[in-house]
């Protein structure tokens, strides 16, 4: 018996018995009347079951459809939100790129300034060095130099 049939095993068995009885065809009128009555009873019962199941299946389909529609709405809302987030991300990425460029420019300037300071420091050191040298180790030449500058010689 297939799965589909096994859900209606009792009904299938009854139908099989009814068919066998009909094929035999040896019953009396009273037996036929009784069998026919039973068949009607079973048919009515089955009809009611089918009505209930059909009704329930329709309800389930409606529920599924409702759920599907809700999912569709949520999907659209999520999609819109995602687009918004992507746009925000692009803006932020641009900003980050701009900031990075600004930082690079700033680094360059700092580097230039540092170099300039180094040069100034080197020059200063040179001047101070020369001054110290003439002041402490070669004082005579220093005096001559000062006199020369003042026009005393």
């Amino acid at each position, binding site marked *: 018996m297939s*799965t589909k049939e*096994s*859900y*209606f095993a009792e009904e299938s068995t009854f139908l099989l018995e009814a068919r066998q009885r009909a094929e035999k065809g040896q019953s009396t009128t009273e037996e036929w009347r009784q069998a026919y009555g039973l068949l009607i009873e079973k048919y009515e019962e089955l009809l*009611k*079951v089918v009505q*209930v*199941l059909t*009704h*329930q*299946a329709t*309800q*389930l389909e*409606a*529920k599924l459809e409702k759920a599907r529609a809700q999912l569709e709405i949520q999907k659209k809302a999520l999609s819109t939100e995602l687009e918004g987030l992507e746009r925000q991300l692009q803006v932020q990425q641009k900003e980050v790129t701009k900031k990075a460029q600004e930082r690079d420019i700033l680094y360059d300037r700092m580097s230039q300034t540092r170099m300039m300071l180094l040069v100034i420091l080197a020059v200063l050191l040179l001047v101070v060095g020369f001054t110290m040298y003439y002041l402490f180790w070669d004082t005579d030449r220093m005096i001559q130099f000062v006199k020369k500058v003042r026009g005393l010689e």
Partner: protein
Amino acid sequence: MRNLVIEPTSKTPKVILNADLGVFEITGRSIPEDAIGFYRRVLDWIEEYSKSPLTETVFKFQLEYFNTSSSKCLLDIFRKLERMHKNGHKVVIRWHYDADDEDMAETGQDYQALLDVPFELVPV
């Protein structure tokens, strides 16, 4: 007779059939692909139980969702309980449903109309 307890899964309900305590319950959701395979044990247990039932059998159903094939199996269970009732045993079916769930209430009414056994609708 041995009690039957089936723990729930995402697709099958919890089943408690305890003749010692007089607890008969099917709760949860029932959407198995092979509903007949799942409910066969339940049907067999009730068939066995119906041979010598308690003085009163109150069967509680509280399902949040079930598929059509489960519905047919539920009907088979109801039929067995209806047969017990017709054989003179006291049987009550209590159909618990979410008070907001109109469909489940309607389903209970459908069963109620179909069966000749005390069938109570209990909104929760």
